[in-house]
């Protein structure tokens, strides 16, 4: 396609699918009614199927792509390398990459997976599911969180719902609501779970060689289950 900007008419809350082998992908959800690509030469093909989904592939499978779409758009991105950035407020988001970092502002639901990249989510209204092998996984706020890493650090700053984490050796830090359950399984990473002051969690802490510690008065406000082979565990008021 030429370097001219491209505008595509879309439904409200459209479904957009982007496939690219490499290159940075930046998607901005903003107050607008169309799907807009400032540089059309980044795009190889745009296809709209019968169900209304717009599928975009990049030029030669490799180009930096900037795309602007309506707020609430549902976006799926598949790439091998290259940073993926989603700015603004989205509906459902699915991102799969191998080596690129994934940086997401806000979405209703998120599924993001990479092998060696970092994943950062600012805010997720419902379920936030992220997975990386060696990168860092960071969720600042989510309704519920499911996180898996092998060696990357995991941090969930605030979650109003359940939190589920599996990691082989990454350090884990969780800010729990104190009303929903937290489950962490790790082999060797240290685990810190902060619950609101005054919360009385049922703490089920198991460590074969590490030191488990709960600094809160125990009760039944929520269940905090952490198991690790060798890492230290602490449940603290915060």
């Amino acid at each position, binding site marked *: 396609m030429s370097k001219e900007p491209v505008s595509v008419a879309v439904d409200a809350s459209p479904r957009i699918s982007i496939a690219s082998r490499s290159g940075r992908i930046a998607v901005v959800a903003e107050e607008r009614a169309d799907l807009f690509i400032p540089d059309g030469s980044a795009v190889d093909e745009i296809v709209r199927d019968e169900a209304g989904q717009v599928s975009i592939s990049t030029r030669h499978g490799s180009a930096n792509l900037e795309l602007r779409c309506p707020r609430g758009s549902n976006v799926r*991105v598949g790439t*091998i390398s290259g940073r993926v950035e989603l700015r603004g407020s989205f509906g459902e988001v*699915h*991102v799969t990459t191998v080596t690129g970092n994934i940086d997401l502002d806000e979405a209703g639901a998120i599924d993001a*997976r990479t092998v060696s990249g970092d994943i950062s989510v600012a805010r997720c209204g419902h379920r936030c599911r992220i997975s990386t092998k060696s990168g860092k996984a960071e969720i600042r706020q989510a309704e519920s969180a499911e996180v898996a890493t092998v060696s990357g650090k995991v941090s969930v700053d605030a979650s109003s719902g359940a939190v589920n984490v599996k990691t*082989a050796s990454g350090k884990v830090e969780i800010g729990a609501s104190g009303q929903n359950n937290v489950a962490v399984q790790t082999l060797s990473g240290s685990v810190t779970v902060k619950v609101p002051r005054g919360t009385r969690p049922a703490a089920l802490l198991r460590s074969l060689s590490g030191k488990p510690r709960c600094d809160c008065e125990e009760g039944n406000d929520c269940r905090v289950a952490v198991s690790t082979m060798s890492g230290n565990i602490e449940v603290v008021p915060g």
Partner: protein
Amino acid sequence: MGAVAAPPDTLVGAVVFTDIVGFTEYTALQGDSDALALLGRQEQIVSEALPPGSRIVKELGDGLLLWFPDACDAVDTSLGLQERFERESTESMLPLWVRIGVHWGRQARRRDDIVGHDVNVASRIVDVAGPGEVVLSEATLTAVGSKLPTVTFEELGPVIMKGIPAPIRLYRASR
């Protein structure tokens, strides 16, 4: 000139790869003996769950290559395995954190082994799955059709995999 090779002996079925997440770290922490026990437990659980006609094709380090003649059996068994692995991980300290990838297609038989493009695709799909997940290809979903009404399939989107020319739509199965 030599004789023209006979067409390969082909199969149509579902290829399933399993892979234990964190196996290297577990081995480093616990030693070879415990690592072998973990592999043995995975294989035992899988062997017990396999329906008639399906089989373990081979062991691949910390994973297994399985073959199923029926796509529904492959997906249903994989989900059942994840439930079993999860129970085992929670009840014991055994980290059976297994990811599973499923792809329906054609495979060439090489003695007891299976090879070919569709086997390679299946091996890439398992890389996309997280621990506890079953991820499958669109080809598998098409072969399943509406025969697993209690299973939910969530589209992950177009997934680009190294060595595979075209993007593949993948789905996360759950119930």
